[in-house]
């Protein structure tokens, strides 16, 4: 076996140009496959992350009728979830929220808005709300935080007074005015054009719903633990009228959208495999066909075709390994760099993404599975592509080969 490995290793460096071309084509396919997969999964992670942080949490606890009829009367007393310890793994954060719709008015302009009554301390950690502040003060007692798009629509500035009108708990009228103490800029268009945030107690007072919340959102350390955690939580709430829902149950449109896009991405990935695969196949075939004379000599002097195949298999294996290794080596720092610094989009591309409610960035996912899956996939594809050239050695005719 040592002889074949030695021969294979020296053979691949016999034609350095061919070796680097083949290894590069494999490396490029691994590199681009990793990047494509990282962008695809990164965009899903980003969408899910934004959605669960700002809207639902990985797990949401609601009064059992709330999700079907999202009205204030289907809220619940937050005392019911007081025994939850959100610091327990895998629960990393939890945030009580009181959500309602309201009319926001300033001077001659009025607009329907989504009112979020939140614990500002907890929300700063849950949805990083404080980081969205572009002007003003996050913690200003008695004030309201307004999304930037909405403030522009209403021509609101810091210190201006916003009038809110809504229907409170059990149908009471709710109306109040709040000084604008902070402007928030959201990456999600729907939030940026229509969200206002009040401290939870202020929202409960405004909606005449003392101690009531519409949702208790839980963020998990690992989103893949959502279903397990959800089924663990439900029995603990069985005696109350509360219901546990996963983000997948709360946002089926997002799940379907991701699934659809995922298969589109898979098709693109396979097109990449096919394009690069033809190149790799051609090189492997050439690598075998141009050496038929040499194989003829080896066979003549006593090396069986099986042993020649083993030698060539080692060569191909080394080439593939080299290519995959270089590809992974090149892809990992690039993915890591863009994972930390997503590519910001501008112009029409940004506008079209924001129109669909997505953040205008190209996010990357950093997951060992991406490198592992793409490395293994390209490795297997390359091995499959080597089968035909390898089999052609079996068809070798010594005399014909020696005449070449």
């Amino acid at each position, binding site marked *: 076996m040592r*002889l074949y490995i030695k021969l294979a290793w*020296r053979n691949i460096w016999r034609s350095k140009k061919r070796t680097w071309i083949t290894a590069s084509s494999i490396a490029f396919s691994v590199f681009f496959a990793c990047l494509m997969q990282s962008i695809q999964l990164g965009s899903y992670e980003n969408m899910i992350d934004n959605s669960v942080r700002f809207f639902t949490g990985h797990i949401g606890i609601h009064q059992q009728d709330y999700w079907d009829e999202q009205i204030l009367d289907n809220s619940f007393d937050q005392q019911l979830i007081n025994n939850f310890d959100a610091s327990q793994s895998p629960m990393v954060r939890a945030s009580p929220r009181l959500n309602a719709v309201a009319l926001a008015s300033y001077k001659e302009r009025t607009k329907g808005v989504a009112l979020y009554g939140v614990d500002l301390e907890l929300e700063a950690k849950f949805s990083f709300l404080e980081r969205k502040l572009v002007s003003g003060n996050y913690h200003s007692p008695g004030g309201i935080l307004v999304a930037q798009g909405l403030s522009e629509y209403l021509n609101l500035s810091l210190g201006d007074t916003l009038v809110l009108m809504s229907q409170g708990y059990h149908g009471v009228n709710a109306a109040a005015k709040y000084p604008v103490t902070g402007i928030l800029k959201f990456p999600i268009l729907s939030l940026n054009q229509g969200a206002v945030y009040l401290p939870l107690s202020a929202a409960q007072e405004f909606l005449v719903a003392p101690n009531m919340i519409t949702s208790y959102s839980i963020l998990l350390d690992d989103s893949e633990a959502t279903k397990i955690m959800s089924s663990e939580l439900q029995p603990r709430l069985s005696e109350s009228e509360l219901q546990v829902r996963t983000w997948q149950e709360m946002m089926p449109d997002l799940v379907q959208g991701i699934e659809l896009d995922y298969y589109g991405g898979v098709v693109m990935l396979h097109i990449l495999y096919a394009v690069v695969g033809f190149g790799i196949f051609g090189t492997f075939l050439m690598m075998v066909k141009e050496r038929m004379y040499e194989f003829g*000599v080896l066979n*003549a*002097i*006593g090396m069986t075709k099986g042993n020649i195949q083993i030698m060539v298999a080692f060569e191909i294996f080394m080439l593939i390994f080299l290519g995959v290794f270089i590809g992974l080596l090149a892809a990992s720092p690039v993915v890591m760099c863009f994972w930390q610094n997503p590519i910001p989009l501008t112009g029409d591309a940004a506008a079209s993404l924001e129109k669909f409610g997505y953040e205008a960035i190209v996010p990357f996912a950093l997951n060992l599975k991406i490198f592992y899956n793409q490395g293994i996939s390209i490795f297997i594809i390359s091995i499959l592509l080597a089968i035909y050239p390898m089999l052609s050695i079996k068809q070798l005719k*010594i005399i014909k080969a020696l005449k070449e």
Partner: protein
Amino acid sequence: MNVIELKNISKIYNPDTIPVRAVNNLSLQIEQGEFTAIVGPSGCGKTTLLNMMGGLDPCTQGSVTISGVAISTLNESELTDFRLKNIGFVFQAYNLIPVLTARENIEFIMVLQKEDPKVIGDRVDNLLKRMGITEQKDRRPSELSGGQQQRVAVARALASHPKFILADEPTANLDSEATAGLLEIMAQMNKDEAVTFVFSTHDQRVIDKAKRVITLNDGAIVSDEIHL
């Protein structure tokens, strides 16, 4: 004792279209220790005859028996193994393995035969010395002259003590000095180790050195002379 026995062998190319009879009903015996040259004009069937003796090309008719084994009865894998253990080949174009050094090329057949490394080492050292290429042992074929490469090829063919060596125009690419040196070595090996050599050649210097000269024409033996 006959090492090679050819009985009424023929080789017909393109039998279904335009048949070309390269070897025509030829019978021949080569005994252990012979130093035989097969000569004749181009296209007379020398190389085809050597290929059939070496089990590289099956004959259309007749039988080839090597040391009592009818090689036409062997399947492809058995035939390859038979060649490995019984026949040494020397080609006109040397055909050394370009990525191996001279020493590794000589070892190659013995390694394929899974010989003991100590035996391989001793044999290779001996051959390198006898071929006069000890100093070149770590050079690759591209770093050797034509004559040196052919010496390595002969050493490779001799290394595993084959029953006989088939050499197809071994001196065709060599200058006079290299040819003389190579012939001297082969003649010495024939004398010392009773190695059987069968050459196909045009080269008068090889013919002069041969103990037996078989002349072919149109695929048939026209003369078979013993040179004393």
